[in-house]
């Protein structure tokens, strides 16, 4: 081994003697020094950011309207504390008409002034006036405590004021977590404080660091290293050098391999230096001592090695450094192009057309995808037929907006797909450009064409179906039952051509609970279709509501779970059990009504759930994970992974009207399964028998994606996707949000396939190096 170790040592010698390497190390040092002063400080959530208020114009309007009366109110008090000029502006404030550009500019000025003044005012003790807040319902324990406490410091005063304004305008200002994180650079505050927990912030920092490293080392660093190292192999093959090496008692193929690995030394030194620097900064400045960051060193080495193998093979065959650079860069671009094409089609097309809701009502089978395209199974044609088609320009523009975004943002995604049994029609809620949820209706009498319905109460999160078939809007201000005509007259005021969100809730009637449940950003609810019990999960709390005589709902219990308050989750309520799936991959089962925990599981690398559903009679649950796996909890509460052919590709699942389970796959396939009680002979496993398949021919584009692009992508090396491997190694999560802004669980997440790029890359590397070795052994120089 001595000769080969000598070649490797010589590569280090060469690298360390290189001025280019010293230049790159200097550059990395500058980047690290520039990043090192970043840090953060945990502080109480106080100030209002742009996102803290649902719509600032509405807040201005509410302050204006409520301050017109002389009765003491927070709006009156706040108005009195604003400077006269701003007061004047707010009094004159009117929502501008679509064509009124100057009015829109004026609105922006008023909103900015209001935000600035409120934040200034909220830092002072005079923001709170007991008389003005007397009529405001104060349920928050933290606020109650702060109001009781004497001698508050500046931060406590600001926090108290923040909670006061949240209590005063619950429809407009979402309740905030107790603490926020302030990003700092040296001693200066950067950006507005982030209303997230420390652990989520750390996770976010890790994600950003992985992204930064992927670009800085994975793209720029590897690119430079390829150019620098491209001459190493061809130089070795210059006659005066090669003949001397070949005259030594060494194996030719090992000479090639050691020269190849020697060429990786540049990357080892630069990636190692950068990764260790980042690891130290994360540890010392952000208290993130994640040793997995160091795994980036071998990963980036591997990434470089894949590209460099092409360069080395070209170097052996043609002995031209220029050709080495050209071929390796061309290879890199080709692989990246294939990767981008694959993920682009997946995000822009495949994920968007994936079924995300199956609705079964009687004989009707309806599916909807992420974009909102809805299809009904036509038993005569034996295929899916699109319904809810519309000529409305507003809706078409909305679809266009969804179509051009890489992923469907939560704010634009349709929700609440259900079958209104009482009226025999399909309903779905879509938001317009003003974020107002609007009901859309498809009735068989109108050939299932889209019909605009009424606007839903502001802040509506979901549309549920009560046992008697009534529709229930679940919003951040309470529950609202649809009691009147859901068809909109569509004559309301408009802004920029869109319906203005109205404070009026007709034909919805509020049905409790009293007081309203304080919801987090991604609160979810589920209703039991037998007893009508309703469960809400948000901010680590499960609130159980039950129907009371008179049609309202009252609190049955409120249980604080011992989990991180910012964890999102999904919920499904059965008759006597309740299932919660958390963002961190844990799935918990509780017995009702006492909320006694009776099981907790994590499946398939802590993959979070995408959909949780309970059967109609409430004794069984199904969980679909973000990686496409289905888990089933039968009556015996022993989870099992059903042996069905769709496993790993399941988009969503729901229980049918009877005992059947409807499993959706891809864009056009629903299979109805009949779970059969486990038999002793089969290890106690539930058998799933296919009852019926609802499937139509996939489009040509889907076939091309599934049968050409995907297999090609699987087999060919994907050096660019090693970032996913790093992401997986650093975070330990097998799925990640599709984009940084995505926080809810229902949106399709990106399933990390961390080892596929490693295997395909390794296969490619071995093949190319093998060809290089064979060439080296057989060639005459």
């Amino acid at each position: 081994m001595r000769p080969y170790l000598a070649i490797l040592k010589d590569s280090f010698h060469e690298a360390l003697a290189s001025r280019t390497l010293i230049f790159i190390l200097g550059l990395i040092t500058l980047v690290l020094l520039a990043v090192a002063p970043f840090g953060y400080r945990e502080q109480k959530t106080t100030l209002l950011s742009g996102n803290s208020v649902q719509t600032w114009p509405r807040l201005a309007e509410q302050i204006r309207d409520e301050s017109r009366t002389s009765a003491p109110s927070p709006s009156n008090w706040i108005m009195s504390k604003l400077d006269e000029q701003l007061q004047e502006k707010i009094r004159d404030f009117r929502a501008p008409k679509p064509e009124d550009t100057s009015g829109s500019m004026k609105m922006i000025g008023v909103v900015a002034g209001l935000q600035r003044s409120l934040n200034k005012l909220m830092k002072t003790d005079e923001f709170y006036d007991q008389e003005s807040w007397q009529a405001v319902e104060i349920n928050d324990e933290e606020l109650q405590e702060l109001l009781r406490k004497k001698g508050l410091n500046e931060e406590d005063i600001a926090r108290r004021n923040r909670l006061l304004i949240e209590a005063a305008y619950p429809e407009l200002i979402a309740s905030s977590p107790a603490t926020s994180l302030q990003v700092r650079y040296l001693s200066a505050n950067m950006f507005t404080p982030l209303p997230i927990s420390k652990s989520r912030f750390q996770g976010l920092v890790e994600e950003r660091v992985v992204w930064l490293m992927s670009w800085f080392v994975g793209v720029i660093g590897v690119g430079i290293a390829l150019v620098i190292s491209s001459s190493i192999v061809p130089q070795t093959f210059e006659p005066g050098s090669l003949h001397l090496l070949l005259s030594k008692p060494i194996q030719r193929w090992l000479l090639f391999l050691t020269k190849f690995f020697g060429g990786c030394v540049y990357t080892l030194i630069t990636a190692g230096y950068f990764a260790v620097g980042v690891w130290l900064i994360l540890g010392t400045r952000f208290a993130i001592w994640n040793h997995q960051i160091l795994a980036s060193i071998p990963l980036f080495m591997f990434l470089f090695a894949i590209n460099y193998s092409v360069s080395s093979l070209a170097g052996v065959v043609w002995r031209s450094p220029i050709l080495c650079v050209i071929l390796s860069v061309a290879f890199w671009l080709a692989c990246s192009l294939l990767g981008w094409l694959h993920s682009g089609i997946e995000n822009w097309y495949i994920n968007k057309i994936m079924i995300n809701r199956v609705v079964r009502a009687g004989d009707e089978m309806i599916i909807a995808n992420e974009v909102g395209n809805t299809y009904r199974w036509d038993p005569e044609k034996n295929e899916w037929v699109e319904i809810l088609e519309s000529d409305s320009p507003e809706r078409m523009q909305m679809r266009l907006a969804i179509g051009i975004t890489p992923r469907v943002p939560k704010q634009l995604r349709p929700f609440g797909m259900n079958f209104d049994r009482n009226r025999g029609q399909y309903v779905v809620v879509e938001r317009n450009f003003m974020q107002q949820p609007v009901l859309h209706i498809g009735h068989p009498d109108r050939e299932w064409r889209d019909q605009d319905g009424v606007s839903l109460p502001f802040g509506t999160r979901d549309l549920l179906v009560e046992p008697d078939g009534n529709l229930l809007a679940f919003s951040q201000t309470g529950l609202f039952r649809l009691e009147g005509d859901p068809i909109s007259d569509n004559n309301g005021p408009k802004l920029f051509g869109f319906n203005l969100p109205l404070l009026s809730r007709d034909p919805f009637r509020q049905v409790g609970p009293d007081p309203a449940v304080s919801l987090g950003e991604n609160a979810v609810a589920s209703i039991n279709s037998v007893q009508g019990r309703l469960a809400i999960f948000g901010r680590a709390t499960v609130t159980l509501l039950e129907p009371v005589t008179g049609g309202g709902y009252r609190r049955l219990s409120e249980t604080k779970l011992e989990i991180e308050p910012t964890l999102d989750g999904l919920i499904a309520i059965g008759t006597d059990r309740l299932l919660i799936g958390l963002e961190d991959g844990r799935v918990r089962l509780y017995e009702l009504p006492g909320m006694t925990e009776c099981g907790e599981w994590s499946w398939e690398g802590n993959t979070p759930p995408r959909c949780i559903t309970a059967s109609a009679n409430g004794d069984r649950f199904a969980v679909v994970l973000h990686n496409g796996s289905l888990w089933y909890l039968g009556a015996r509460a022993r989870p099992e992974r059903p042996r069905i052919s769709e496993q790993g590709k399941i988009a969503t699942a729901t229980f049918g009207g009877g005992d059947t389970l409807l499993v959706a796959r891809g864009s056009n396939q629903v299979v109805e399964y009949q779970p059969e009680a486990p038999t002793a002979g089969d290890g106690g496993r539930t058998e799933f028998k296919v009852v019926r398949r609802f499937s139509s021919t996939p489009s040509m584009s889907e076939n091309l994606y599934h049968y050409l692009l995907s297999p090609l992508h699987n087999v060919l090396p994907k050096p660019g996707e090693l970032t996913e491997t790093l992401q997986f190694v650093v975070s330990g999560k097998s799925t990640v949000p599709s984009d940084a802004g995505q926080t809810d669980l229902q949106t399709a997440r990106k399933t990390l396939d961390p080892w596929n790029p490693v295997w395909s890359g390794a296969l490619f590397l071995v093949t190319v190096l093998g060809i290089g070795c064979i060439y080296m052994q057989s060639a005459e120089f």
Partner: protein
Amino acid sequence: MNASTIIDVSDLRKTYRGGWLRRRPIHALRGLTLTVRPGEIFGLLGPNGAGKTTFIKILLGIARKTSGDATLLGHRVGVRASRREIGYLPENLRIPRYHTARSALNFYGQLSGLSAREICLRGNQLLELVGLIERARDNISQYSKGMLQRLGLAQALLHQPRLIILDEPTDGLDPVGRAQVRTLLQRLKDDGHTVFLNSHILQEVELVCDRVAILDHGELRFVGEVDTLREQLSGDCEQDFELTVEVRGEKSQVESAMSAWSILSWQPTSPGQYEVVLRFQDQHRVDQFVDRLRAAEISILNLQRQRLTLEDAFLKLLASKKD
């Protein structure tokens, strides 16, 4: 294989295939047979394209023979066991410029399987031998061509090989550098090393080589001692040779005395003295010529028959085969 040979080659042939579409054969070696004995300096001569480099490549295992037998120290050529016994200095030696003489020796020594201690011990001796000990820690980018060649020689000798193959070792060197290399070769010979020298500088080969082989278009034209080659070619040319004579006398007398012979050149060297080159067919005519000069009372200051150099012999040999 003969135990007393270092290189033993018999009917060695090498054919390259050239061209992309019609792969026409190029015969680089055509049935080469020769042996190199231990302790001798063996020179390989030949014009460009004669097959010298191909032959060395086959000895080193860099190229493969098409047919024939070739052994080196009893091993098949090209195998690692035979390469272990070879020290090689390539033509246009390239040593990476980040090395010093010492680090380069360390690198090439390890490639030859030497330990750090062995390299240290031998390295100092060799640097001393090639006159680089004073500059051993200097970066080789500061070295002259001659210093690089000497360093190349040092690396070739580092693992004490039984055979040293030198490919154009004095190429590009100035006269001083060449003299240094010649001295080194002589020392190697004195130490009992076998040296296989490929050079197109014939004077050098003539000065240091015990035996030479002349290749032309892949064929062996001659193998043997330089004197044998000379004699052989001189014998071939017995009927026609040149003689230089320096005489003193009256110009008219000298011209008259020499008028019967074939004068090639005539040159006065000082007043009354002349150097004349003549061509003779045989020794008898030379004797008659001397008698004639003495009879005419012309003083013979110097008389020299022209000796055939290796270069003359080489050119004659190649020319004769062409004829």
